[in-house]
């Protein structure tokens, strides 16, 4: 299913704190249901450009959860305010409207699509990058794919979404400051898990800061485990027009992350 051509105004139906992050929900009466890993370009209908003429461009956000309903699909986004765009989206109130373009980009593969022998999935998220893994976990749950979850955060202020998006399931946690779970990196947990694993039995799916993704890809390559990474890059348009979101591709040259990603093969 392709995205509707153009942008449409969707109403904010909920906005709430979720740990150090926020979750807001839009009611989309027009678009198809997004696949895990897909994203939307979002800008508020009013009071965009309110901070010294910024934000100017829409912001790319992965969808974290969806709920189909009679009047459309509820789209949930997990967000951390780190600049003029995300701060404005964090301040959204129910009844406001948001310009929505999407769903855009590709989506995660199933374990068997990634590797013929893989039957289960290990999801590795870092910080705000846990967002697309929530919807992926739900889809894998619906399909009966055995799924293990590892999530890591910097500190209490830079964490959230657990009760909202992952309350269903057992999660292996790590934090840089030790406030919750393993005192260290989430990739420590992944390394331990892969040590004890038959490498061919699982595929790894990761989203988080670039150093975390590099570490995940290196671990998976070392163990011969297939992995997919959901990446991020500065993006003006989200649909292949601006060529801003260039990411190096193996063998030279670049891909446009918006149309050739955001999910790419790791390693």
């Amino acid at each position, binding site marked *: 299913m*392709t*995205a*509707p*051509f*153009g*942008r449409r105004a969707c109403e904010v139906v909920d906005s709430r704190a979720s740990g150090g992050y926020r979750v807001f929900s839009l009611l989309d009466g027009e678009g198809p249901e997004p696949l895990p890993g897909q994203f939307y370009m979002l*800008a508020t209908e009013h009071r965009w*450009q309110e901070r*010294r*003429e*910024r*934000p*100017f*461009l*829409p912001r790319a956000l992965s969808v974290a959860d969806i709920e189909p309903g009679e009047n459309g699909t509820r789209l949930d986004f997990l967000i951390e305010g780190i600049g003029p765009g995300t701060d404005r989206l964090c301040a959204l109130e129910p009844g406001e409207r948001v*310009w929505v*373009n999407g769903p*855009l980009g590709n989506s995660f593969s199933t374990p068997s699509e990634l590797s013929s022998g893989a039957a289960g999935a290990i999801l590795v998220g870092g910080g705000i990058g846990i967002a697309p893994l929530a919807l992926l976990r739900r889809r894998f749950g619906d399909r009966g794919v055995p799924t293990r979850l590892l999530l890591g955060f910097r500190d209490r202020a830079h964490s959230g979404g657990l009760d909202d998006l992952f309350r269903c399931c057992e999660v292996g946690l790590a934090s840089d400051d030790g406030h919750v779970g393993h005192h260290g990196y989430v990739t420590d947990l992944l390394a331990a898990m892969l040590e004890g694993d038959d490498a061919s039995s699982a595929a790894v799916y990761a989203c988080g800061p670039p150093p975390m993704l590099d570490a995940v890809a290196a671990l998976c390559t070392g163990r011969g485990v297939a992995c997919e990474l959901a990446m991020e*890059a*500065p*993006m*003006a*348009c989200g*649909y*292949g*027009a*601006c*060529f*801003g979101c*260039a*990411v190096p591709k193996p063998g*030279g*040259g*670049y891909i*446009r992350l918006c*149309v050739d990603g955001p999910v790419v093969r790791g390693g």
Partner: protein
Amino acid sequence: MVEFCGIELRDPVINASGTFDAIAARRVYGEALLEDFPFSAFVSKTITPEPRIGNEPQRIWETPAGMINSIGLPNKGLEGFLAEDLPQLAQLPVPLIVSVMGTSREEFSRLVAAVGEREEVAAIELNVSCPNVHSGLIVGEQPSETAALLETLRPLTGKPLIVKLTPNVADPASVAVGAEEAGADAVSLINTMKASAIDPASGRPGIGAGQGGLSGPAVRPIAVAQVRAVAAAVRLPIVGMGGVCNGADAFEMLAAGATLVAVGTESFRDPRAGCRIAAELFERLSPPL
């Protein structure tokens, strides 16, 4: 209908080169893109003789009411364009304008001759914001270089030649006059303005290349002034662009002397911006019943 260099267009709103990839957009939005194509003519990304991968990231940087880009003209090169992209662009429901750039008159000649002989192509835009490898001068910054280039290219094609003017000169009108005298059919302006921004987190330029080109509403008053100056100096039709976001902005460009209006950065924020702006402009220009 609007007539531009002998080409009939349904309305005066087209795209700025390099701001809309119709092939990628069709992948994203499907056939709805063709049913509701946002521009009355489509201008391709700039084609160079050989393939280019484009600049190293970071390529874009948001600024107040605009953005800086330094993309570096990634493209498949002339042969790749003719073989892979042109057949797809020919399926668009509007006339096709192909943008080309060379680093010498020989390169430009090769591009214009090859593109000009294709019946799918309605017109050619010359991107002259690049240094000439022989003189080191940026062609579009010099009236004499621009005129000399046009004198070389004019005999090579009967297709309309549009010269894309750079705003990074003291007197763009003199460059437009040089283009007109040497046989150009139209001029388009403005290209992006040289700009830089410092990343507050690192203290270094936010753009990987150090600087890039500014676009968006921030440059619109400059574009309007340059369109007015060029319109006063030449009789050629003008494609006016620079920060056009709505019908009122498009009206401003036409009132300043443009025949067509091109939409660039606004398409990043709204993929259907071209349709919306044309409708808003039509409403503005139509006498009340």
